[in-house]
Structures are given as C-alpha cells and as structure tokens.
C-alpha cells in the first residue's frame, strides 16, 4: 500500500514500528500535491518547507520516544484557521495578503500533538457556499467522476471543499474544516470520506475567521471514522479564549468507535423523507437502517416537526451574524484596500465592494436588511424563535432515542456551474445538515455507498449534545457498508 493510502491509525503504528519515516510520509504527500493539485486546486497555499521541518522534528521525537499522538501525520488546514506566519485568506480577495500573527487554538492543539501541516485548503469565500464555487482562488474539482460522463468536472461540495478533496485524493491524511450549515458533512458526503461537526462549544472558535458565530463549528475530516475520532480528540477541549467553549472533559473517541450499537435506540425522522428524494438515497438510508438493526440496534420512527423551517431560519440568522462579523473588513486595519482617492466612507465602500465576492455581498445585504430598524422583529427575532422550536424538537426526540440516522445531502456531487442560476437552489443542498447546526448537536457524515454513476453518498448520524461518543459508535457500525 502506498503511503498516501494509509489511515492515520495505520500510519501512526507504522511510524512507531519504523516501517517508514515521518519525512518519507510527508514527502509522499507533497509529491501527490505536486502531481494532483494543479488539477484539483484543493490547496491555496502549500507549505512544503515548513512541513518537512516538522516531519524531521517528528522523526527525532519518535527516535527519542517522546512522540506525541499525531507526530508526523500530514494534514490539510482549511484556509479559515489562522496560522501564525502563514497567509490565511478565507478564500477571499479581501484577506488575500493577510498573514496572521497568531495561531488558532484548534491548529495550535494539532501542532502540540505533533501534526505536520501541508498547507491551507481551498474553501468557499468566508465559508459561504455549498460547492466551493465562490472561492476567490478558483473552484475545487472533486476527485470523483461520473462513470457515464467522465469529462464533467464535479464540485467537492462546500464550504470545506478543498479539505474534503485533499483527503479523498490522498493529498492529506486528514484535514480541518468548519461547519456552519453543513460545510463539513456535505463535502464529506460528496467526496466519499468521513467528517464530523462536533457539538457547539466542543472545539474552540478562537482564531477561526468568523462567519456566523453562533453556528460556526470546527471539526475534522478523514477517510475513516476512527481517524476522525483521533483528530477530534486532539482538536477538542476547553479554551478560555472562546467564551462559548465548553468546559467539559473530552472522552476517548477512538475507544467509542469500538463500542458497537447493541441496545442503542436509533431514530429515523420522517421529516427528512423529502419530497422528490432520489430513489438511490432512499435505498441507501434503508440499507443503513437494516445494518444498524443487524448490529443489534433498535430502530424507531420519530418526528422533528420543524425540520422544514430549518433552512429559512438559517438564511436569516447566518447572514445577520455574517453582516456583523464582516463589518471588520474595512480596508483600514488589515486586508485589501481599494485604490483611488475619496473620503473615508468611500474607502470603506469601495474596499468592501471590490474585496468581497458576489455571494458574500449578497449575504451581507440580506443580513443588514433583516437586522435593520423596522424589520428586526419580523425576520431576525422570529427566526430566533423558530430556532428555539427546532432545538426543542431535538431535545424531545433525544429523550427517546440515542441517535438519529438520515441522509447527509439530497443528491450526489453535481457539476461545476450547476445550481448557480439562483441562490436559493444552491441553499437547498443544506436541507438535511442545517438543523444540527441550529441546535448545536453533533452530527457526522459517513461514506455509505455509491449511486448508479459511481459517485459517493453519505449517511448522517446526529447525536445528543456533547455525546459525540455515541455518534462515533454508530458511524463506525455503518462504515464500509457501500
């Protein structure tokens, strides 16, 4: 097996046995990036030299017996996580030259555990998108192709499209992502890998470029459920620098992957049976249910009655928070400043108009509108109340079941340029993922099969708040069913 096909778990064992060095492992991934990134565009920035230095340090630690759990493991970092001294763009022209003077808490924790960063992964601009088509650094290609139409270039999903494509194509062993409306789970499903959005507060948001602060969830991608468990174990934990970070112990997620599902009650929410759902996705879901039953779980029908309002709620709250968070990009303290004269107000207005792309500008305008005098109660306050009802649906259903099983996305990966005619068509991609963000409960996409074109499809496991362990147990039971 080539070094770029190994799991993180197998690579960690191989490094400790001396089967290969961390430098060789990083070199293999850098060679894969050099070969494939021109086609995939999964990385905005590659930090080859720093990666090799880190790998050499990992080899010294391995030899000395002081190696940390992720020593020598090469990862891709979504270009939304601030990395000290390494350009962090958020996929936007407005941060095209931004070099953070600090390290995000999540990436700091991964570095402290010995990980090697290969570079910064492409994404939709400010994580706003479901296709990676809104990046100022160009779209990302999904490594998968339709069997019947191999020339069509497909999207990797979004917003963490570069992270998912890099892991699926063997350019990195794992990656960080963020999930605000589905930005870890939908690309994981489209690229045929695993990705978990942990509970809100489980991973610190400090040093992650903010999109919608009450919805932004950092989390990992990897090719297996166990590898996600290893990465989340390193990324998670209390951080006083994020006031919403949860001060709770982090369980051993890797052990939870081996726990099994015997005796668990799994709910199947009837509202996720969307009208016009592809027959293949319906069949995949039924297959997943059967598999959990065979493994000893009890599967029951449940209801989350406000599910259908999730997307509309999200598309008020997320733009509202974004319009506030993105007010800081004004061409004064950092980032892009428009050329030309004019007064301070013109400097703000032109820097922002030229620095932000079309989707970001659209969301800022929507957010500004729903927060403006006279409309706040009708839109924003009402959306916050519906959000409370969506969370209550989850609270009530989790009194009777341990986890929920649903499809991750309403379709397989689509072609670059499709679903671009009007913004709402693109927003509908997130119909199954948004409710867990609004409620803050953990949810994971597990690769579960392929469609008639050979494209990957994922199933989603949703758990109780801070019960990622059960999500991992159920995810591991589903793995490999395709």
């Amino acid at each position, binding site marked *: 097996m080539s070094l770029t096909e190994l799991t993180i778990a197998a690579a960690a064992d191989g490094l400790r046995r001396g089967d290969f060095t961390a430098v060789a492992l990083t070199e293999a991934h850098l060679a894969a990036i050099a070969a494939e990134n021109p086609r995939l565009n999964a990385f905005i920035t590659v930090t080859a030299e720093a990666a090799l230095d880190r790998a050499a340090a990992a080899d010294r630690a391995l030899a000395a017996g002081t190696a940390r759990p992720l020593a020598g493991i090469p990862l891709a970092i979504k270009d939304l996580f601030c990395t000290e001294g390494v350009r962090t763009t958020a996929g936007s022209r407005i941060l095209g030259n931004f070099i953070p003077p600090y390290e995000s808490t999540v990436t700091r924790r991964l570095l402290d555990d010995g990980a090697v960063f290969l570079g910064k992964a492409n994404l939709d601009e400010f994580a706003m998108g479901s296709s990676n088509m809104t990046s100022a650094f160009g779209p990302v290609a999904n490594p998968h192709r339709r069997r019947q139409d191999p020339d069509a270039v497909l999207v990797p999903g979004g917003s963490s499209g570069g992270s998912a494509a890099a892991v699926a194509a063997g350019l990195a062993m794992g990656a960080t992502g963020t999930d605000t409306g589905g930005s870890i789970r939908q690309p994981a499903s489209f690229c045929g890998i695993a990705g978990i959005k942990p509970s809100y507060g489980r991973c610190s948001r400090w040093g992650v470029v903010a999109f919608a602060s009450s919805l932004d969830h950092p989390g990992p991608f990897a090719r297996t459920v166990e590898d996600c468990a290893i990465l989340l174990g390193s990324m998670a934990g209390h951080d006083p620098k994020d006031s919403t970070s949860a001060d709770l112990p982090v369980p051993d997620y890797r052990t939870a992957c081996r726990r099994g599902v015997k005796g668990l009650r799994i709910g199947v929410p009837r509202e996720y049976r969307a009208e016009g759902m592809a027959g293949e996705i319906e069949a995949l879901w039924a297959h997943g249910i059967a598999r959990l039953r065979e493994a000893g779980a009890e599967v029951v029908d449940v209801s989350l009655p406000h599910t259908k309002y999730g997307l509309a709620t999200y598309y008020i709250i997320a733009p509202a928070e974004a319009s506030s968070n993105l007010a800081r990009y004004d061409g004064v303290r950092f980032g892009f400043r428009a050329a030309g004269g004019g007064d301070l107000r013109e400097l703000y207005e032109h820097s922002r108009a030229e620095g932000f792309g079309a989707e970001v500008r659209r969301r800022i*305008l929507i957010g500004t509108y729903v927060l403006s005098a006279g409309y706040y109660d009708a839109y924003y306050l009402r959306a916050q109340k519906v959000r409370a009802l969506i969370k209550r649906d989850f609270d009530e259903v989790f009194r009777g079941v341990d986890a929920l099983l649903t499809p991750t996305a309403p379709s397989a990966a689509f072609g670059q340029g499709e679903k671009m005619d009007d913004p709402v068509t693109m927003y509908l991609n997130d119909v199954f993922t948004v409710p867990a963000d609004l409620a803050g409960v953990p949810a994971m996409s597990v690769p579960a099969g392929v469609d008639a074109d050979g494209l990957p499809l994922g199933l989603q496991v949703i758990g109780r708040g*801070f019960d990622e362990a059960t999500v991992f147990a159920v995810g591991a039971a589903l793995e490999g069913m395709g």
Partner: protein
Amino acid sequence: MSLDPATVRRIAALARLHVDDAEVPRLQEELNGILGWIEQLNEVDVTGIEPLAGAAANALPMREDVVTDGGYPDAVLANAPERIGAFFAVPKVVE
C-alpha cells in the same frame, strides 16, 4: 415584503458596500427571491416562545477585569494597508 430600488441602495449604504446603479435591478431580484422564500417562517406559531440566540450550553463565563494581552504594536500593525508610525492611516477626515 418586497424591496424597491431605494431600499436596496439604503441597505447597501448601511452595509458600507458600494453598489453601481447597473447592479441594483439584479440585486433587487436576488434579494427579493431570498426574502420571498424565507417568508415561509410566517406559518410557524411562535406565540410564547423565547428567542434562542445560540446553542452554547452554559451562561457566559466571567473573568478578572485585568489586562491579559497586548504590548506588541508592530504585530498589530503588520497587516495594515497603510500606517504612520504606530497608527493606522486613513484619508483625512477633518479639514
């Protein structure tokens, strides 16, 4: 509720986003499409429901009111488009 061109311009001004006159009709159409779609929330009975601002489990923590960070102006200014000494520079505001 439907946005007219004057409202699109007013919102853009509040958001400090320059909008060319030629862009207004397209923005108006896109924003009205989105707002028309989110009107569906009016069906939901929210009587007596407390708004939920976020999913954070606990009350916000308190800390000592002391200086815990700072003292490195060069790092703070390192990404500034324009600086004068230890200050951010902007076009002249007061004549």
